[in-house]
């Protein structure tokens, strides 16, 4: 069962982070954001910060799962875990890159 956890954790974290950033983007663009006294120009830094956090978390997971204490006993599962952790990191960077450039609320 812990093997399943090792396999599932990084990508599930990507999914959670991705949905969270999308939700945050919805919040930034909603009228509530302005009502809270935050200007439209604060949106991008907040989103960038969230994306940075998600990427940091993925790097931490990747490093942790390679540590011998947490790594899977079976070499094959260990290999698959690494592949999946790397793909979760790539997915995080790839899907959150738009926060750096695209127009926020149009």
């Amino acid at each position, binding site marked *: 069962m812990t093997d399943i956890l090792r396999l599932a954790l990084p990508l599930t974290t990507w999914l959670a982070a991705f949905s969270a950033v999308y939700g945050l983007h919805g919040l930034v663009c909603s009228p509530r954001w302005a009502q809270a006294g935050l200007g439209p120009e604060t949106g991008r830094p907040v989103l960038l910060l969230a994306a940075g956090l998600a990427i940091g978390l993925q790097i931490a997971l990747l490093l942790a799962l390679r540590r011998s204490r947490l790594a899977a006993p079976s070499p094959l599962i260990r290999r698959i875990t690494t592949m999946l952790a790397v793909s979760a990191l790539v997915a995080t960077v*790839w899907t959150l890159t*738009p926060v750096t*450039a*695209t*127009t926020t609320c*149009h």
Partner: protein
Amino acid sequence: MFAGASAILVLVMVLLWLAFRRGPAVRKGGPAAEERDERIWIKGLGLAFPLATLAALTAYGLVVGERLLPRPGPDVVTVGAEGRQWAWTFTYADAPGRATGGHPATSPAGRPVDVAITSADVIQSFWVPRLAGKLDAVPGHVNILRIEAWEPGDYAGLGAEFNGPGYAGHRFTVRAHDAAGWEAFLAEETP
């Protein structure tokens, strides 16, 4: 995009054909061969190749998408479009109180037009194929679509989201006027 897709399709077909054409003589087993096969097929063709192509394509799509966004400008005209089963009603910010039925919507040529799209009943979609992509009309939401007609003339428009039995005939026309014609349209008496 079409050429690239065709090239990839041809590549895959050729690889498949070769798999059946090659004689069994060239094949060698063993872990080293397995390692080499994984490097070529999976890391090379399976990972690196799609990643590079797709990164370029995504970036290109986003740049084009940015260009199509409705941004405020000095000569932007705003037209309202309200969809209902099975007609459109158009209103004009420059001529308050004026509303035209489905035939035709009127707009100036050579000036960007923001169409504020909404719906009175079910979900519709506003599509003038020659002027812009489509955008949905969702009840309770107002979506802004930027269109621009380069030449005066009539442009066919369609409802493009299934909305009940009258869907096939859910059409309208956008009539683009030159500057004088547009002024004349705005100056007309409200009927």
